């Protein structure tokens, strides 16, 4: 092993990170990131991890509780990295590392050392350490056993996330794989609610599940942290075994990259459906809209999110209805719940793309400026597409609500709900116009999952989603039928105001786009 060169490459990764701070914005970002990281580490170590360790001791079920907490942390690490893309950045790809005199094994070690040293994973290490420290402090375990368990579990968590990420990437690169993936996520989300009655009826099944769980790395880590005897050593062995299996699986997956399904064909196939859809927007804008649609329809992330916007809305309704039925109403009743879900329909399918329209076009951005159209025409066309695609979900949602809704359907209620959707549609896409220019960020077109939006983009998407989920319950109070009868006209009126906001934004951002197009070009081409 050429540890010297591996060390140099790892240092280079941090030098590159430091190089980003040469700009004023970079310095500010670094300061805030460093400050936040420090605060989080202190908070996690002090309040989170150690606190959890203390609770584990006090409850008298140290091993089980520590295992349960570690399982939660482990699962969060997996979900945050695979679904949201945190800590999964490949600073140097295998291809890039090949230019250096490193053997295959050394390249693998370099890549994963750089990966595991990501601040995201350090946070998880701190959490795990906090629990081990808490248990040790209150006399429930050995410091060295705890430390060994944490280190093994931490590496296990990282490798498991890599393996799962690669499997997800393989699944989503298949035809309909992206849709299957999100359907899977929804099913997993619903699983606890579905399994609860099964476990109640058959406690033997639950006992079986517990037995299986005890062989997992976090549960084993819980045992290792609290036992100084043979069972502690055995638990460490279980984690080490998992680590070996996961490492072998990772090596296998990396050695066998998915084969691109390239069809060698010499006959041009003219596919006209997308162009016909684009033609609805007229001869000038139509080809641009069709181009955007064709472009995004080939994107795995888009193909995951958009088709599942309606099922996701239905899932939310189902989920909140169950909570309502169980007596702990999270949404303040059926009407606020319906308003929240209808509001989300206005942007949930396209929001992530609308806030960063040019983020995935890379060098293609330049082409838009060379075409014999107003330079901002492509920008407007992109927004028209996203608005149209989201608008197309409103009618089916209204029909589905009429059939399956939890409140008896009536014209004023439907007007209120559709008005809510239209309002969020124009409001969100109006804000998205600004974000696409002022908060643009170069993204990775090939990545199916993960988050590569700018801070502004995240604020708009996540803030919009959370805001829309909880705003209706703050505003709508009192008896639902009376509210609908007296105030059904409010949301259509707000929808009109949102439409005006969208049109004004469109006009203003068109000028802004012209003024900032050079800056955007530099950013999208990766030179900024």
């Amino acid at each position: 092993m050429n540890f010297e060169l591996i060390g140099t490459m790892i240092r280079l990764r941090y030098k590159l990170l430091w190089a980003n701070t040469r700009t004023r914005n970079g310095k500010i970002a670094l300061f805030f990131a460093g400050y936040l990281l420090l605060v989080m580490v202190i908070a996690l170590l002090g309040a989170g991890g150690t606190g959890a360790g203390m609770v584990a001791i006090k409850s008298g079920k140290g091993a089980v509780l520590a295992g349960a907490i570690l399982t939660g942390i482990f699962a969060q690490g997996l979900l945050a990295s695979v679904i949201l893309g945190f800590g999964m950045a490949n600073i140097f790809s295998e291809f890039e590392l090949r230019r250096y005199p490193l053997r295959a094994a050394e390249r693998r070690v370099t890549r994963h050392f750089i990966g595991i040293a990501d601040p995201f994973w350090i946070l998880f290490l701190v959490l795990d350490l906090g629990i081990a420290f808490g248990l040790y402090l209150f006399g429930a375990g050995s410091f060295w056993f705890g430390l060994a368990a944490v280190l093994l579990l931490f590496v296990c968590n990282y490798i498991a996330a890599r393996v799962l990420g690669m499997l997800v990437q393989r699944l989503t690169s298949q035809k309909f794989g992206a849709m299957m993936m999100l359907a899977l996520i929804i099913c997993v989300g619903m699983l606890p609610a579905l399994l609860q009655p099964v476990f109640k009826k058959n406690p033997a099944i639950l006992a079986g599940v517990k037995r299986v769980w005890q062989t997992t790395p976090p549960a084993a880590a819980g045992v290792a942290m609290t036992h100084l005897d043979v069972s502690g050593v055995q638990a460490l062995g279980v984690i080490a075994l998992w680590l070996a299996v996961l490492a072998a699986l990772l090596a296998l997956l990396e050695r066998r990259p998915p084969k691109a399904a390239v069809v060698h064909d010499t006959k041009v196939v003219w596919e006209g459906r997308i162009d016909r859809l684009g033609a609805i927007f007229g001869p000038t804008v139509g080809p641009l809209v069709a181009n955007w649609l064709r472009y995004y329809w080939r994107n795995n992330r888009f193909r995951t999110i958009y088709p599942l916007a309606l099922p996701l809305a239905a899932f939310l309704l189902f989920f909140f209805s169950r909570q309502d039925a169980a007596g702990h109403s999270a949404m303040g009743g059926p009407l606020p719940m319906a308003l929240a879900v209808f509001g989300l329909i206005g942007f949930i399918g396209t929001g992530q793309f609308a806030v960063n329209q040019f983020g995935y076009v890379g060098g293609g951005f330049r082409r838009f400026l060379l075409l014999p159209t107003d330079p901002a025409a492509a920008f407007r066309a992109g927004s028209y597409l996203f608005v149209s695609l989201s608008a197309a979900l409103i009618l089916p949602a209204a029909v589905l609500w009429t059939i399956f809704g939890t409140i008896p359907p009536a014209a004023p209620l439907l007007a209120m709900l559709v008005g809510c959707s239209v309002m969020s549609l124009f409001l969100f896409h109006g804000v998205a116009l600004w974000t696409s220019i002022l908060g643009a960020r170069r993204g990775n077109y090939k990545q199916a999952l993960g988050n590569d939006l700018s801070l502004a983009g995240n604020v708009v998407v996540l803030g919009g989603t959370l805001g829309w989920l909880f705003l209706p319950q703050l505003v709508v109070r009192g008896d639902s039928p009376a509210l609908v009868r007296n105030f059904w006209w409010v949301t259509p009126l707000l929808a009109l105001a949102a439409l005006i906001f969208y049109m004004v934004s469109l006009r203003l951002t068109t000028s802004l786009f012209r003024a900032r197009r050079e800056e955007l070009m530099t950013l999208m081409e990766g030179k900024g």
Partner: protein
Amino acid sequence: MQMDGQTAAIRITGLSKLYGSVTAVENLSLEVPPGRIFGFLGPNGSGKSTTIGCLTGLLDPTAGQIEVLGQRFDAENVAIKRRIGVMPETLGLFDPLYAHEFLAFVARIFGLDEATTRKRVTELLDALELTDSGKTLAEYSTGMRKRVAFAAAVIHSPEILFLDEPFESIDPAGVALMKQWLRRFTDQGRTVFMTTHVLETVERVCHDVAIITKPGKLVWQGDVSVLANDGKLHFNGQEFDALEPLFLHLTGEKYKDLDWL
């Protein structure tokens, strides 16, 4: 170079482009006559691509005027954009699209009807040997991507072609074909404005050449077609029998020797 009684295809007057405090092009003035292949040369970072960016509406000049086909040109001049074709430095392709989809998109935006679009796309793909329609642009080699960008520049039969380093990465057969097309293009009175670093190609293809140095300063402009008839290039009383020595002389490039190499 002032032209006599003929409207210049391209006229640049006092063009400057600054990126913040960095000057990329400084007070550049030149004219390109119609029906010529014009080579725009300079060392790396001398402002060639920036100049082409200003000439094609990608960039806004900080100062100066640009006239294309006798009209004032800026990024908003759609009528002129319709009459020019551009092969940019970074190619400007949409990677997930197939070549025929990309070319058809460009053709439609340039106002070609559906029948003409399909006919021209098919002919261009065939002529440029881009016949593997099962691959997206992302899966094409660098040379093939250049060919697609070239096809996109010519599909609407423009009056002026701007080509930023068109021949690099393309195989000899492709280069020969493109040269042949460019000659036929200018024989019809149309103009080609191109940058390249391959001076032998410039000597064989271009009629006129302008050489700039950092930051975008014009240092020489002249007719290089004389070289084909054993003529000489002149600068400050000195004679040069090829473009390379003149270029090196003007740009101050020196051969540095590394004793360990």
